[in-house]
């Protein structure tokens, strides 16, 4: 090892030991992002900030929360909400944040689909993103159980019951997951562990992985244009900032993100203080009671579309019961987005509106997801059940048809 010179400054002292100057360049000032982007490119930073909010508010809630079926409800609704100074604020931020984080995840995800940012080298970005979606879903579901209200209890009951549909091991699997024959104290304590430790650890790891996966294929841009990042970076460093197609992560890219973040926070805090009941269902302010089913049981809004895919199949087809069909459709819906890079057979990386066939597919899918979400909440009776069935079927057909649609699109574009 070379001998150390005496450092002239604190920066140099750290640089000698940790290489901070180079690190800052790699991570910040010479990490290149395309210039041709709109505010949808700020969703990643928004999600990072929201996750930080959730982590910090969660830490404060953790200090007063009691993971015990007899004490959980009052520890949340009395101790935290009414006694702890600003405990209510942390809970509101945590609950609203958990709901809004899914809104931003969906915007982030559909932005990726719209601009084709999941293919031609960007597959790992997409897969790690979908991994984060799954982890956030598990985090949301496990966390929703903790206040031990009626909706916590019955949503947990209904969702864990779904696993009972798996052939052969189903019934035992449900009991194994719950640690009891019904949702009980054992279920609460194990989901508590998952919510505060295991899943957050996995999320942190997956976030790092997601960021890392951006490094080689680089961030996409508004036109799906491929260019040489090194060349553009050189232009920028040489002072041709206006000509260069890239900007550094810090300060240029982040300054735009902070601006978007500022206005997003206005919306977020409005919800936190004045309009929170969409994320804190009134029914959940009744304590969990295994002997009293609420009139309507529904999951949080971000699970409604896949819940409706499950529920849409309510009658027997070809000897297979509606329940099994629903379970199959549900399984399909939950893995199909991951496979998107391989279902899209067109090599085009362009915004959807510039793709002759894909644009119809994209907007149809969006409309179908909205219909599924809406009817996932409504009681599944009469015509609602049929709308659910058709919307669920359309969802399956859309994804099965995607390879053919995109193949045809590729041919058409080539033929031009």
């Amino acid at each position, binding site marked *: 090892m070379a001998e150390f010179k005496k450092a002239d400054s604190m920066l140099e002292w750290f640089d000698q030991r940790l290489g901070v100057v180079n690190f800052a360049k790699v991570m910040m000032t010479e990490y290149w992002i395309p210039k041709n982007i709109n505010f949808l490119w700020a969703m990643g930073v928004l999600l990072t900030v929201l996750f930080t909010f959730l982590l910090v508010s969660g830490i404060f809630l953790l200090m007063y929360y009691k993971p015990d079926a007899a004490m959980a409800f009052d520890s949340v609704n009395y101790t935290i909400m009414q006694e702890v100074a600003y405990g209510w604020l942390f809970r509101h931020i945590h609950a609203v944040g958990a709901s809004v984080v899914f809104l931003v995840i969906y915007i982030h995800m559909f932005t990726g689909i719209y601009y084709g940012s999941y293919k031609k080298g960007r597959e790992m970005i997409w897969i790690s993103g979908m991994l984060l979606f799954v982890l956030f879903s598990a985090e949301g579901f496990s966390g929703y159980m903790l206040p031990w209200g009626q909706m916590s209890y019955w949503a947990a009951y209904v969702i864990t019951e779904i696993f009972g549909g798996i052939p052969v091991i189903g019934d035992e699997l449900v*009991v194994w997951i719950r640690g009891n024959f*019904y949702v009980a104290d054992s279920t609460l304590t194990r989901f508590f562990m998952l919510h505060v430790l295991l899943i957050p650890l996995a999320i942190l790891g997956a976030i790092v992985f997601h960021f890392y996966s951006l490094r080689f294929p680089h961030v996409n841009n508004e036109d799906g244009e491929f260019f040489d990042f090194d060349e553009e970076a050189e232009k920028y460093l040489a002072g041709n900032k206006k000509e260069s197609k890239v900007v550094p992560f810090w300060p240029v890219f982040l300054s735009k993100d902070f601006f978007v973040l500022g206005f997003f926070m206005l919306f977020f805090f409005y919800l936190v203080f004045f309009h929170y009941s969409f994320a804190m269902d009134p029914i959940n302010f009744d304590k969990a009671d295994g*002997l009293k*089913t609420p009139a309507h049981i529904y999951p949080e809004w971000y699970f409604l579309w896949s819940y409706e895919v499950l529920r849409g199949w309510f009658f027997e087809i070809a000897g297979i019961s509606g329940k099994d069909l629903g379970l199959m459709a549900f399984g399909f819906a939950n893995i199909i987005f991951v496979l998107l890079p391989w279902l899209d057979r067109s090599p085009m990386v362009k915004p959807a509106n510039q793709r002759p066939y894909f644009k119809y597919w994209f907007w149809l899918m969006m409309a179908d997801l909205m219909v599924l979400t809406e009817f996932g909440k409504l009681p599944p009776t009469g015509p609602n059940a049929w709308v659910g069935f058709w919307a669920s079927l359309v969802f399956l057909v859309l994804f099965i048809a995607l390879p053919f649609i995109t193949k045809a699109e590729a041919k058409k574009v080539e033929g031009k």
Partner: protein
Amino acid sequence: MMDESRRGFIGKAFGAVAAVGGIASLIAMKKTWDPLPSVMSAGFTTVDVSGLEANKLEVVVWRGKPVFILKYTADMKPTDGRSVKIGENYFSVMIGLCTHLGCIPGYEGDKKLFKCACHGGEYSADGKQTFGPPPRPLDIPPFKLDGVTLVLGEEGPEYKKMTAKA
């Protein structure tokens, strides 16, 4: 040559031992999540029905749910697919949650019916809905007969016969 194959063998052996340890740990972790013995034993409620009084409702707790056991009097007719013959007597064995919204109905012995206080639903003594909002009869839990003992949580032949009929 010798050296390399030995290294190959040791490498494989090391890998195998590590894998065994890993699998063993996974099994232990899986078992940690299993329901506890106390939970398992509570999952099978055993009731001796020989001492029950006719037309007086017995409520036992099974898997967190109330289960109604009602011994019929001589003049109460058994219902095919709903009444259970234990020894010489007929019984109703049902999960005591109203099929409307899950309240616990009460039994009114003089009128031989179950009445739900929440929304006024009524069931006959064999658990069929007779009035109000309940959409279906009271559910029958899986049970097994062992002489005069009723074991809730196991599917015996009598239970299978009943569900096949229903």
